[in-house]
């Protein structure tokens, strides 16, 4: 079956190579300390790992709770086909966050201290509790796919097990699970903003605001459907499944409203604080601000508002990609670029920092590939091939 698809195994070998390359700095890090593989310093204690793996990783996993909530709580059956892939990527995203923390924490073998020594005043404590519980919730939300896959296994020994029993258990608690997922995500997405509230003196006033948690949550909700469009389009290209166009354009239709609320919140907040002039005067930080707003918010609002764009697979995909890029821009701004360093320090990520993160992403992509191969992820959405639309994408 794998041999039939020749194009993809090349990708698989590249991903495998990335994982192996990433392992080398990981080994060096555990032998000689974080300083040996990173340019982190006392002046920049949080760098590429926190900005990319944690801040972007969590936000880009937002497709899981937005879609699960939309399908199961708001009862939008139409989108059922994308809920499972969204939950899978969210689960892998969160697993990645945990793995990244095992690299970034100074003493990862004490990570369990977060469970026994509570500091309920720390936003990071909220983050930790949410990561732990939501990862479990996501695993449970995704588990039916595994049970279904196992019950159809080629090995009779595995197939004979009563997989419908755990399946039925998960089905009965499915709605509470989804509600828990939405609640935990609301808290978790916003708590990453709360973490930055501790830095009123070092985070630039273009970004520092008491409503940072709300802004974090709103942008995450907007990026949820965008990320689902982005990843399902890519996976449909890789695995040859096609999603119905009305699912994609339906997801796209929601995005400009959420981004509009986000933009409004951001501008009203700046005006209320009397800092709105900074978007023109605070050079060079204002360029970063305009960058994330224009690329990730204003252009996507226009694009997704155009029916022509929403009806084209390429249009939806690239507009969603802009939202994703804008989010990454924003999270890097707030957690690194607009956050003042201690005087006398500079920071640019070491190539080994980037290599470790790249290896983690490659890990996730490999797992997604395996899941699509082995588990029923996309069984509902087989649609006739459409070569014309395919070509607009490539």
């Amino acid at each position: 079956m794998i041999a039939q698809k020749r194009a993809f195994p090349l990708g698989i070998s590249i991903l495998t190579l990335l994982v192996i390359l990433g392992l080398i700095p990981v080994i060096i890090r555990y032998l000689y300390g974080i300083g040996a593989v990173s340019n982190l310093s006392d002046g920049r204690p949080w760098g590429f790992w926190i900005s990319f793996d944690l801040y972007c990783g969590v936000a880009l996993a937002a497709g899981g709770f937005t879609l699960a909530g939309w399908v199961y709580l708001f009862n939008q059956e139409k989108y059922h086909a994308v809920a499972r892939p969204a939950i899978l990527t969210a689960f892998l995203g969160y697993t990645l966050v945990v793995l990244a923390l095992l690299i970034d924490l100074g003493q990862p073998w004490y990570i369990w201290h977060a469970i026994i020594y509570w500091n309920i005043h720390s936003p990071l404590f909220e983050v930790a509790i949410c990561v732990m519980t939501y990862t479990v919730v996501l695993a449970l939300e995704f588990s039916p796919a595994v049970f279904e896959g196992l019950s159809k296994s080629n090995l009779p020994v595995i197939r004979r097990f009563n997989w419908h029993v755990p399946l039925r258990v998960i089905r009965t608690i499915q709605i509470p699970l989804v509600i828990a997922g939405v609640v935990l995500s609301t808290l978790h997405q916003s708590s990453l903003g709360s973490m930055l509230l501790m830095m009123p003196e070092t985070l630039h006033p273009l970004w520092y605001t008491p409503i940072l948690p709300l802004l974090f949550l709103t942008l995450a909700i907007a990026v949820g459907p965008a990320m689902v469009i982005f990843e399902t389009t890519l996976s449909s290209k890789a695995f040859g499944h096609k999603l119905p166009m009305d699912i994609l354009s339906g997801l796209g239709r929601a995005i400009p409203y959420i981004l509009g609320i986000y933009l409004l919140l951001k501008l009203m907040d700046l005006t209320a604080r009397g800092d709105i002039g900074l978007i023109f005067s605070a050079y060079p930080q204002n360029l970063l601000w305009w960058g994330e707003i224009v690329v990730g918010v204003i252009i996507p609002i226009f694009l997704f508002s155009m029916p022509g764009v929403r009806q084209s697979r390429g249009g939806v995909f690239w507009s969603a990609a802009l939202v994703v890029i804008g989010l990454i821009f924003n999270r890097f701004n707030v957690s690194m670029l607009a956050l003042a360093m201690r005087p006398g320090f500079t920071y640019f990520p070491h190539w080994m920092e980037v290599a470790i993160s790249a290896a983690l992403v490659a890990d996730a992509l490999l797992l997604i590939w395996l899941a699509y191969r082995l588990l029923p992820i996309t069984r509902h959405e087989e649609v006739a091939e459409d070569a014309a639309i395919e070509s607009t994408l490539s």
Partner: protein
Amino acid sequence: MSKAVLCDANKCIGCRACQIACKQWNELPGDETTNRGTYENPPQLSAHTFTKIRFNELENDGKFYWVFTKLQCMHCEHPACVEACIVGALQKTEYGPVIYDDKKCIGCRYCMVACPFGIPCFEWDTPIPWIRKCIFCADRLSEGWEPACVKTCPTDALKLGEREELIVVARERIAAAPGKYVNHIYGEKEVGGTSWLYLSPVPFDKLGFPTLGSEPVTVNAARAMGAVPPVLLGVAAAMAGIYWLTKRRQKLSQAKDSDKEEKGVTK
């Protein structure tokens, strides 16, 4: 009552004996550095250097000044590091010091990011790293001794005492020699007050002290954390409510449909 130290930049002669005393008491190794054309050394605080004297050459009101200021943990009254620490490894004690428990720390470095003074440091080059910073010689204080740096200071530029009393002393010194001091006790109000207080002949921003408001930096984060329980319950209730509504609507429309069908049959 909480202990504090008053640092008088007019009395400091830049001998750096406090740096050495700190290294001795805390058994810290020396760092190899290079000549940067200044007596100030090492260039930064680090996991091996909890305190250092900053040598400031500057002009103020047309006059040349060479001012020495001591840098170490300020032991805030409302410490951001303590609020930030995920496991509560950092604690503000009643008697002043912000202390650190390496049995709890997991090395997340949030304290370093949160500190408005940029003080806590990390052991970057060891596989088993801890956070290191000045702990106000909490061990010595509990024995009734002065901190090592205060004990060793030859010019009484560092004075240990009760915080309220030291603020009175500082006011008296400013009043006695108004031309010699700027009318500002750094640390009295900054970020809600600190246990280390400074007097200076020139404005503090010229000495590299961060210009900070009088509100503790933890206020907004604390507010956000206080909103967590209501948000949790609110979102859970809202989601359950939405589910109930959509299910009910679905049921009603199904009932209507079957109703119509039934009526159609009977007619």
